[in-house]
């Protein structure tokens, strides 16, 4: 099979997985089922990263989102009374507003599909920094963009401290 067809096939299969998973995530009544479908979606995204030769990003996507965040999600969901949540109304009544927003997005998509790829200006990949290589990633994070990286980590630290402060009754 030619390479291009295989590439396209992978992309469409992954797209179906991601979109299907996302739709199932928001339509399930049971929160645990939603979480499982969200895992499927995140797996699909990791697959897309792999498809784009970003192995590091794919591995980190699975490690952080599925192995970390989704596990904590499930941990919390298990402590919640699901029967009560299932009785509540699943969707709110603002569908008219939502419809307008969706229509606008649809028109945008249609416009760009008509114009074709020429209407997008793709940024040139930076010098090495965007290559999916682990070493290059490390160089980018810890040398080229050290200050933004440290600022982000400081922000996270502040967020953690805030969470601890709110969770703890006496300090």
């Amino acid at each position, binding site marked *: 099979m030619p390479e291009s067809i295989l590439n396209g096939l992978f992309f469409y299969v992954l797209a179906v997985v991601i979109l299907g998973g996302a739709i199932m995530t928001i339509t399930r009544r049971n929160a645990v089922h939603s979480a499982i479908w969200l895992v499927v979606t995140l797996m699909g995204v990791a697959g897309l990263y792999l498809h784009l030769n970003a192995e*590091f990003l794919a591995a*980190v996507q699975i490690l952080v989102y599925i*192995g970390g965040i989704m*596990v904590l999600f499930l941990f919390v969901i298990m402590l919640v009374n699901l029967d009560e949540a299932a009785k509540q109304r699943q969707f709110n009544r603002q569908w008219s507003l939502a419809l307008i927003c969706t229509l606008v997005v649809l028109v945008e998509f249609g416009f760009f599909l008509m114009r074709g790829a020429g209407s997008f200006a793709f940024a040139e990949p930076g010098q090495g920094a965007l290559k999916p290589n*682990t070493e290059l990633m490390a160089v980018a994070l810890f040398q080229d963009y050290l200050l933004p990286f440290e600022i982000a980590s400081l922000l996270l630290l502040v967020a953690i401290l805030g969470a601890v402060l709110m969770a703890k009754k006496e300090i």
Partner: protein
Amino acid sequence: MTELPFSFPPSIEPFVLPALYIVILVAVFPLIAGYIVLLERKVMADIQVRLGPMRVGPHGLLQPIADAVKLLIKEDIIPAKADRMVFWLAPVISVVTALVALSLVPFSKYFFVADTNVGLLFLLSITSVGILGIILGGWSSNSHYPLLGALRSTAQLVSYEVALGFALIGGLMVAGTLSMQQMVHAQLEQQMWFIFYQPVAFVIYFIAALAETNRTPFDMPEAESEIVAGYHTEYSGFRFALYFLAEYANMVVVSSIAVTLFLGGWLRPFPNVRLLDFLNYAPILAMFVLAFFVFLGASRERRPIDKMGLAGLGAVCALIGLLFLVPAVLDWVQGLFWFVLKVFLVLYTFIWIRFTVPRYRYDQLMRIGWRWLIPLAMANVIVTAIVMILF
């Protein structure tokens, strides 16, 4: 890659050997897991001064087969109020992730399914997905003890994954690569197993690995004396067997990571010392010694069927030993022999610890993880970095 005697079309050629290895792994691993269980029961019996399984086959050697058949033909019970879909899915997640993780293990220079440039990271991420199987299994049973087991397991795994990761970073800094094969080559080039550069990291990794695989003294998620069987209390028959398989596959995977990163992978001891080249013939010797002991055992058996069985096993061992005399075969088996030997030594230590150390209390577990292992692992990374910059 070994040369194949016949050729495939170039478009599928790179996939042939890995596909073959996958089939071998999936087909053979359940059997190996069964025999690890037998090993565990025998070692336990030895530590507790008794004989262990002795009835099925000579010295209980066929016990795993009997266990497997029993599990497969047992009634499959799904609790009435369980979430059937999730109940069905959970053990599958556990088994699939555990077996996929095996595909990244470098069993030898030739025998591996995949060697990616993010190998170790990918292994960690796959095993972290395996936690979902435990959590979902515990939740979907709709029963108290499994839920408690699942909650404990989540908290424990999330806590110890941090220490595990930091311990591995220490080893990775010395290796300078995430690829599992390159790690072994790095140890060959630096002429040193990384356990000697990173003893602290190895100890932390080992403790965290015990916790990750739910082994005593960290077996809170399935503590029999507290919560029946933890997350798989409601599972029976085949589904239970799947959980069991996943657990032992995970044990093999964490031992393999320890062996690959810290204990020289498939290298023989002192691979650079010419004087010790005779160690290359160790697989042959091992097979013949094994054959000798099996024949010795056969001569001591009373029942003729046991005698015949053991003699047959001895003959197979001797034949394999003869096969290893062919240089090409020996070269192929070389790495595999040392790798499996090291993995089983690590597994033996796991089992040994299980039957000598009592279980920790939950708060003790958390204290060890957060107050000791994680700070120690971080300090190890910092010290390693400073030493590497200075020298």
